[in-house]
């Protein structure tokens, strides 16, 4: 693109260095040419202003405390959600630093029935409200939903695998999420320019022989343009014109937030992450600070106000859903820090301001602050991260090096570990298959170990009462994995086909490039149990215990065997092989919309539910008990310390799990040292060591 379609907004872009970003949508280029790395310490930061404390106090007293008692503060049962469906709402009269609520009242939840009506109805009733029959009629008679479409298409074997819990948590009745709009575009370019670009991209595909592909492309672009217009109208209802670019730091934050707000007004995806904002905002802060238009206290007040808004996003969920996800998360993940491709740190003063919100407003799980860690990050920032972690336990860390190598330096995490290039990539969220239960199906020839029901046909069980043979079990496991993986990916293809059709994320996709990368985020649960069980079969003596029908329901394991999570290559290699084998099987299957298949090992909250539906294992794992989370070693199996378990997890090949690997550890501050300085130094050391396992030699 060489012409200057983007209107040169002299005032808005004054002082910014030119580059490709001025003639095409390219936020990364804008950041790289304009941001100021910060290598100092936290001394410059400001505490909360009176106003921040006042608004936070009102929110706590009048809304959050009430919600904690009732579970749900309120539901609007008459108005199906949309970008501009609700009148403006405020926390209080003071609430003007950053404005905008999902509905007209804080914490009031909106219906988003495009995903499926049944969930909405259940959630309304569980909140003690009555369903509006007119709304119900619309979404059950006149307007088909994602959920209905999926079940129209589902095959018998998908239904069987689903009800036997071999595949669980599929986004077939709720919004899939895991899409991050590049909300910064709203601020940098203004909505009118974004509409112009989308219109031009749309019309670049026309006058061709008919194909469903280009018809869908044009239809989706029309949806996106409509969403951008609604976004403008929604902002206008708050008295703010966002048709042009933001001119100040406050506006940059406000415009960006409007983009995010429009998304959470129209979609209730399982994860609604906000992206990578700090260095972007910092450019505006630096400009305003230099011009004397803003003080540090004012800058902090703006970030505090935004974070406060990100803490009160609410979706109408069922109690069941809350149980699977252990609460009411929406994963407003804010990715920060890391290094640029040119080696400069992406840490700015605003990275510090973001962490400072945890002091100014107190700790909270949202937004999920996610630090891209590299040992080369500035020491002052590393120390501040560690200090805030110790104070609040509210920061998560990812390996910047792995993410940067694969997804570049303007990637962000969707949900908890899934990285993607902001505005250029989205994920088809795939929940996960139960790799543990699959092993038991392999041994039992497709009979469910909990119910005795024949779920999968055509597989011979392991016969006889003798000890299990590793090579026989592995061969059968591979066979059963073929069936489970095939069924699983087929379900995902169907789900995302339907979601695109009936619950398309117009707003988030309007803030993406027109041609994007799509990944299929497959996932597994039960890795540690599989690794330990296979290790037990290989290195100890495992004898199956059968019930009267011949079903293997338990195991007698005699002798010692290496366990995953102790930096013991014998067990860790089994774990790595399992991950690699599953990934290879996934890759062999065609994906909807040519998505690139990826895999995650990351159950953070749903491990209890998976465990409940699964029988006993050769590892000694008892039937019905929780799995360990993500890639964690089995609970209690890691006897050589947390760092040893980090090294074991580090042996899983990131290439096989590009959607992320999680290891959940709990460390108390006291467990890190006698003094705060010692605690900070030790936590920094563990993070440095953990994210560069090959730092040896």
């Amino acid at each position, binding site marked *: 693109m060489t012409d200057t379609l983007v209107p040169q907004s002299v005032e808005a872009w004054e002082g910014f260095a030119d580059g490709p970003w001025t003639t095409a949508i390219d936020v990364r280029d804008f950041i790289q040419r304009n941001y100021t790395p910060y290598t100092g310490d936290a001394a410059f930061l400001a505490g909360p202003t009176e106003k921040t404390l006042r608004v936070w106090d009102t929110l706590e007293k009048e809304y959050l405390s009430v919600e904690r008692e009732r579970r749900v503060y309120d539901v609007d049962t008459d108005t199906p959600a949309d970008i501009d469906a609700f009148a403006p709402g405020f926390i209080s009269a003071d609430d003007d630093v950053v404005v905008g609520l999902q509905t007209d009242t804080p914490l009031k939840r909106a219906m988003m029935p495009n995903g499926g009506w049944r969930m909405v109805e259940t959630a309304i009733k569980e909140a003690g409200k009555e369903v509006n029959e007119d709304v119900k009629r619309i979404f059950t008679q006149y307007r088909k939903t994602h959920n209905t479409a999926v079940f129209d298409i589902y095959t018998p074997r998908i239904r069987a695998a689903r009800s036997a819990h071999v595949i669980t948590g599929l986004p077939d009745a709720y919004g899939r999420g895991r899409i991050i709009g590049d909300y910064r575009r709203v601020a940098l370019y203004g909505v009118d320019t974004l509409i112009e670009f989308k219109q031009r991209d749309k019309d670049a595909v026309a006058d061709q022989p008919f194909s469903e592909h280009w018809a869908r492309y044009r239809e989706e672009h029309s949806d996106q343009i409509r969403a951008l217009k609604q976004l403008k109208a929604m902002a206008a209802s708050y008295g703010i014109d966002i048709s042009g670019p933001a001119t100040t730091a406050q506006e940059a934050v406000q415009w960006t937030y409007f983009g995010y707000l429009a998304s959470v007004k129209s979609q209730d995806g399982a994860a609604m992450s906000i992206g990578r904002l700090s260095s972007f905002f910092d450019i505006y802060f630096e400009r305003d600070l230099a011009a004397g238009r803003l003080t540090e206290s004012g800058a902090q007040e703006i970030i505090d106000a935004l974070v406060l808004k990100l803490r009160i996003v609410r979706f109408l969920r069922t109690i069941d859903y809350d149980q699977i996800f252990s609460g009411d998360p929406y994963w407003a993940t804010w990715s920060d820090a890391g290094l640029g491709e040119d080696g400069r740190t992406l840490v700015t003063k605003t990275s510090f301001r973001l962490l400072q919100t945890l002091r100014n407003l107190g700790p909270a799980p949202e937004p999920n602050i996610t630090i891209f860690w590299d*040992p080369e990050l500035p020491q002052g920032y590393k120390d501040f991260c560690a200090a805030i972690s110790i104070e609040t336990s509210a920061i998560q860390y990812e390996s910047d090096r792995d993410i940067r190598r694969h997804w570049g330096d303007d990637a962000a995490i969707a949900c908890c570990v899934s990285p993607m290039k902001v505005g250029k990539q989205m994920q088809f969220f795939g929940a996960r298959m139960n790799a543990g239960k699959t092993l038991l199906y392999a041994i039992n020839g497709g009979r469910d170990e909990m119910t005795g029901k024949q779920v999968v046909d055509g597989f011979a069980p392991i016969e006889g009462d003798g000890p299990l043979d590793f090579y026989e079990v592995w061969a059968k496991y591979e066979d059963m994995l073929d069936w489970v993986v095939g069924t699983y990916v087929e379900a995902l293809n169907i789900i995302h086909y339907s979601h695109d059709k009936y619950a398309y994320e117009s707003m988030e996709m309007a803030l993406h490039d027109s041609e994007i990368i799509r990944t299929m985020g497959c996932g597994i649960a039960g890795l540690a149990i599989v690794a330990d069980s296979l290790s037990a079969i290989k290195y100890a003596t495992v004898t199956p215990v059968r019930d009267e029908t011949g079903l293997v329901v338990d195991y007698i394991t005699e002798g010692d065997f290496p366990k995953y999570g102790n*930096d013991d290559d014998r067990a860790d290699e089994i774990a790595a092989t399992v991950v690699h084998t599953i990934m290879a099987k996934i890759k062999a299957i065609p994906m909807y919309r040519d998505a690139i298949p990826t895999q995650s090992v990351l159950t953070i909250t749903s491990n209890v539910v998976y465990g409940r539906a699964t029988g006993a294992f050769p590892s000694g794992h008892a039937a019905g008990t929780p799995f360990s989370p993500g890639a964690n070693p089995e609970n209690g199996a890691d*006897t*050589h*310390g*947390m*760092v*040893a378990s980090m090294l074991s997890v580090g042996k899983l090949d990131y290439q096989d799990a590009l959607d992320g690997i999680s290891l959940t550890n709990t*460390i108390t501050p006291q*467990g*890190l*040292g*006698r*003094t705060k300085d*010692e*605690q900070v*130094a*030790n936590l920094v*050391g*563990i993070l*440095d*060591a953990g994210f*560069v*396992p*090959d*730092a*040896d*030699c």
Partner: protein
Amino acid sequence: MTVEASTVVGTRADRLQRMRAGELGSVHSWELVTAVDGPGTRLTVFLSGCPLRCLYCHNPDTFEMRRGEPTDADELLGRMKRYRGIFRATGGGITLTGGEVLMQPAFAARLLRGAKEMGIHTALDTSGFLGAQCTDEMLADIDLVLLDVKSGDELTYRRVTGRSLQPTIDFGDRLAAAGVETWVRFVLVPGLTDNPVNVAAVADIVARWGNVTRVEVLPFHQMGADKWSSLGLDYELADVRPPSHDEVEAARVIFRSRGLTAY
């Protein structure tokens, strides 16, 4: 000296000879720990065998050397080598503990020498009771000693450990003379070691050692209780409660009043 085949199986005579040479040791377990047994993240190796029988011991499964796993020194040195990057990143190193490390002085000496050759920070966690077993060469390979002074008066020391206090004092004097950095540890057990007179006696002993950079007052806990019963051993402290925060603080104050840094 090169170790021949890495196998630990062999005739009893071979094994004994290799143990005497320090090539083979009896090891309970190893763990990577942070901020517990010295600075940074450490490879802590628990050696089996101890001459004391402390009533509050939380590792009674290390009392007897024969319960340990015969382990090649080279195997542990290989593990240290593997973790050099971690030690560097965290400012850590290795800690030998037990049991009582000085029950196997040749083995310990070989591990410490090997660690120093790789530039790794070393710590020795000991009661000091067998301090005489620690040669001057071995001492030169130790960067930090974690010295457990289990009581300050002879009677209590004997009641707690079954042995006498003097060897520990002698070892502490030697460490002070050699200028080896030392952290002193003292376990506060209500009704057993918490008499202020006893605590003050410990503090008086420690105060004269200029090489002590910190004192850790460790509150007694019941986490080792199950091990005693599973070993079929009689555990005398089943009814003892952990000390309160205030009681621990009071003990620390006694140390601090003598100019010591106490946690």
